[in-house]
């Protein structure tokens, strides 16, 4: 507390300043004139920058005293720098003459003078666009600070470089761009990898299918060669048996009856005939052995599963060509005791034929039912394709008969199928109407019985 003559009369604080005379200090002089005073930053007796806030109070006897408070500028600087304003922003206090009151990062010139022009007075917070000394565009926000009692000379200024403001935005934009680029790269990569994986899968499946078809065809061709060989061997064995017995009889005459026994040369020739017959017999036996590789191997077969397996081969083609596949194979059909490979080939051949006959968008119908009091199973494969003319219908099971273009069909498919069905002791029949479709019906015994047709 300072008396009206400028002498300090009371003090609270870390410094003992009692009795000091402040009568010539500018803030004291100002306080005498006005009611209160807020000084600029200055170094008083202690040579420490500070701000003085002083209020004059008039006593009833007409004299006055001044209540003075000192504020350390360092606190003010700390308070300002605590605002997180970003690296291209400057926040500071200046006075109305442009003298720096707190330090500035960019705009502090010689003798603490502000290097950018001080904006005009305004009693409200304002913002304007200007240029800094280097000609860079800046945005200045400022407020002339007034207290309720007295105006102060402080001006709070926030200066932002326009470039800096943009930089935050540009940084964000480039980050987003990077993110978009990286994620689209990943998406493209994933799509590419997935697509190439799928394509290779499809390629593999197609190749597998082609392989199976070739193997089935080869198996079919070998089976017919085997049948041919067996037929040839059987036919040769009969004349061989005749030669054998005739030569044997002559030999018997020599060895048993004794009357021709004196001619050793004849015996030698006859022996050579018998030996030759034996050699032929070995050859025909080998031929028969070869055909036996294609003999029936009986095992229990679930018809429904097998039909689905076979149709699976054609699923993709059906999708491409928009062919509907209907199947109706009742669950009460028991396990069929028959040869798996042969039945599979019969189905493959018939379904393959149906697909050749079908137009795009057609219908393939595969159904089965029990027949002959549950002893036989009837499997019908129906297509609504081009059908077979009446003239051709009687020849479809004949070898080398084909209606396909030259080089397209061997004409063996259905004849092999016919042979296979016979091997399984079954029957195959065909019904067809030109332009309406064809139905192949295969009837197989549930228990493949052996027949005795020799």
């Amino acid at each position: 507390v300072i008396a009206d003559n400028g002498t300090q009369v009371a003090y609270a604080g870390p410094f003992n300043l009692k009795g000091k005379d402040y009568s010539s200090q500018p803030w004291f002089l100002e306080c005498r004139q006005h009611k209160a005073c807020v000084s600029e930053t200055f170094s008083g007796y202690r040579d420490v920058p500070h701000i003085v806030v002083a209020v004059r109070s008039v006593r009833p006897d007409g004299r006055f005293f001044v209540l003075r408070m000192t504020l350390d500028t360092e606190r003010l600087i700390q308070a300002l720098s605590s605002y997180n304003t970003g690296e291209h922003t400057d926040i500071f206090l200046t006075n109305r003459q442009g003298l720096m009151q707190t330090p500035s990062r960019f705009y502090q010139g010689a003798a603490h003078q502000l290097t950018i022009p001080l904006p005009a007075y305004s009693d409200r917070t304002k913002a304007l666009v200007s240029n800094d000394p280097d000609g860079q565009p800046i945005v200045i926000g400022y407020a002339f600070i007034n207290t309720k009692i007295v105006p102060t000379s402080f001006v709070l200024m926030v200066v932002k470089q326009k470039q800096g403001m943009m930089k935050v935005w540009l940084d964000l934009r480039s980050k987003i761009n990077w993110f978009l680029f990286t994620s689209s790269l990943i998406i493209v990569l994933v799509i590419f990898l997935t697509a190439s994986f799928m394509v290779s899968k499809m390629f593999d499946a197609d190749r597998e299918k082609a392989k199976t078809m070739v193997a089935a065809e080869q198996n079919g061709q070998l089976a017919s060669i085997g049948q041919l060989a067996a037929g040839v061997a059987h036919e040769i064995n009969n004349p061989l048996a005749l030669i054998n017995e005739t030569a044997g009889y002559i030999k018997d005459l020599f060895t048993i009856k004794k009357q021709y026994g004196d001619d050793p040369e004849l015996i030698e020739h006859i022996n050579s005939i018998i030996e030759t017959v034996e050699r032929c017999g070995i050859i025909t036996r080998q031929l028969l052995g070869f055909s036996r590789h294609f003999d029936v191997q009986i095992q229990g077969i679930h018809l429904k599963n097998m039909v689905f397996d076979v149709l699976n081969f054609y699923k993709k083609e059906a999708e491409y060509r928009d062919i509907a596949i209907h199947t109706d194979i009742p669950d009460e059909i028991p396990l069929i005791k028959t040869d798996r490979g042969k039945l599979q080939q019969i189905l493959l051949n018939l379904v393959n034929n149906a697909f050749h006959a079908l137009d795009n968008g057609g219908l393939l119908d595969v159904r089965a039912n029990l027949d002959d009091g549950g002893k036989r199973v009837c499997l019908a494969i129906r297509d609504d394709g081009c059908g077979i003319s009446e003239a051709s219908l009687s020849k479809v099971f004949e070898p080398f008969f084909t209606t396909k273009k030259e080089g397209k069909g061997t004409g063996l498919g259905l004849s092999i199928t016919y042979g296979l069905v016979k091997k399984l002791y079954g029957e195959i029949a065909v019904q067809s109407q030109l332009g309406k479709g064809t139905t192949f019906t295969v009837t197989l015994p549930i228990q493949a019985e052996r027949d005795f047709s020799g």
Partner: protein
Amino acid sequence: MNILLVDDEKKFVVMLAKRLELRGFQVSFVNTGMDAVQLVKTGEKFDIAVLDVKMPGIGGIELRRELHRRDPDMKFIFLTGHGSDNDYSIGAGEATQYLPKPIKIDVFVETLLKVAGND
């Protein structure tokens, strides 16, 4: 021992019959199943019938059933051009014995004696 030969190959049965006769068998031969049935119908008794499996008309398998019906004591041997011991065209339990063509006379005689001895 009285033997009946049935085979559609005429010269073959003639030769086979002669060879068996030389070895002391009593042999009759016919070329069809029908003739064989006719022969049995006359009441002639045979110990063993040797039947070709594959013949026009009545085949060996069918003929065996027919002959067996008329003479349950008759034994049977099958001959076939299918040259293997496990020919699938022969039903299990149907044939007593089975021989592939061309036959070896020693094996054939052995088989005849074995089948006859099974009595």
